[in-house]
């Protein structure tokens, strides 16, 4: 029960309350660049969601099994060279940025090849966006968030498992899709408006994004409210 509530909260928080684009400002480049038409924006959103999920699975496994202090694979490999106790203390987290960026880059390459070979119609709809995604900050940001929830938490029971990490990634991608599709819808209308010349292009997009971000601020507190509604608050649990 607790676990389901947790998953639900992570999902809502990632998709709406702490929207990747409008709250954390990651993935702004495609948000400005590919939001001219709704269908293209939707394709980009799907591609990002897809890649972000794969990257999350990869980065979670790499962090838990290789990078974190006392991780299984590292312990086993280092066991050949140093004593078991020293091997358990090896901390490779300094390499995490390097490893993540290469994991993302290779994942994108493989996904592109796979989709082109086996799902040609899908490739036609969002294949063109795939290479662009490698340098999309949203993906690296999701990996880093997952890492911060896995390594260095005070309470070992709070460390995220694969389910939680994947939820964050998928719904982060969904949040990105929502934001970019709304933006594209507005920009299609903006084309018909009489905008002062210096503001055409990125400038007016930014201002619209600001208003959107204000609208999304209305979601603040939804997650904590839900949590209080779903799990018995501390007060009752104390008085028994």
């Amino acid at each position, binding site marked *: 029960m607790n676990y389901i509530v947790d998953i639900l909260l992570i999902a809502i928080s990632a998709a709406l309350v702490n929207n990747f684009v409008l709250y954390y400002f990651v993935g702004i480049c495609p948000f400005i660049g590919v939001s001219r038409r709704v269908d293209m924006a939707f394709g980009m959103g799907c591609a990002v969601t897809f890649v972000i999920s794969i990257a999350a699975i990869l980065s979670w496994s790499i962090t838990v099994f290789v990078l974190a202090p006392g991780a299984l694979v590292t312990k086993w490999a280092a066991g050949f060279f140093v004593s078991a106790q020293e091997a358990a203390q090896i901390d490779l987290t*300094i390499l995490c940025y390097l490893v993540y960026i290469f994991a993302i880059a290779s994942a994108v390459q493989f996904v592109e090849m796979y989709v082109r070979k086996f799902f040609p119609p899908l490739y036609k709809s969002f294949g063109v966006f795939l290479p662009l995604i490698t340098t999309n900050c949203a993906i690296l940001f999701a990996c880093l968030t997952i890492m911060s929830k896995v390594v260095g938490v005070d*309470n070992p029971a709070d460390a995220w498992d694969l389910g939680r990490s994947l939820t964050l990634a998928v719904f982060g991608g969904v949040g990105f899709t929502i934001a970019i599709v709304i933006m594209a819808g507005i920009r299609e209308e903006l084309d018909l408006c009489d905008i002062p010349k210096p503001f055409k292009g990125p400038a007016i997009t930014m201002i619209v994004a600001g208003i959107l971000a204000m609208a999304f601020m209305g979601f603040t507190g939804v*997650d*904590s409210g839900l*949590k209080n509604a779903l799990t018995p608050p501390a007060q009752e649990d104390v008085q028994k």
Partner: protein
Amino acid sequence: MVDMNPLKPLQPMPLSMMQYFRESYIVQGWLVLMLCFFFGGTLSGVQLKLNPIIEENKANETKQRIPELLLGPSEAQQPLDLKLHTIEVEKKGRKVFYNVYEARFADGKLAGWVTKAVGQGYADRIELLLGLDPNAEKITGVFILDQKETPGLGNKIVTEKWRSQFAGKETKQLLTVVKGGVKADHQIDAISGATISSKSVTAIINTAVNDLKGKLRG
């Protein structure tokens, strides 16, 4: 405009021996490998040199607050011996861990306990330090380590003025949040416009006090 795609197709042209050597895959692979070794060496050097400092920074963030939390701002200069315990509390089949610092004066007398507690705030998680007296009967102070509440409203929970309400409260009774003036001992005045943030902090403290009350003995 910036030329974003200057990748040009390889032109078939007669290569000299030197050029052929330069463009073979072995040389290219060797270059990447050498770079990897070079960067790997640099990084391990950085890690060895800086990691102790970073670890110390992380620990200090908590430790330097402890004297103020336990003894009040006026006597915060007094040195305390700190010892870290991890206390496990079983709650509804779920284990919860608290990192509790045991603080003793130089002469070995127990000064009190400081624990880290986390919980859901209005916007994000709130992380705070809670100071308790030696028998865990009174709260000696509260310090907010990390919060992302609304600027101008909820983030007033970090102000000394609001936090100081908690000092001296007894742990026998649960704290409750009221609006517009405190009437009883166990009440906390809410920040106007940020009742949920105030309630969240109080709930985190109530939970932590309740979990730890029986476990801390001098």
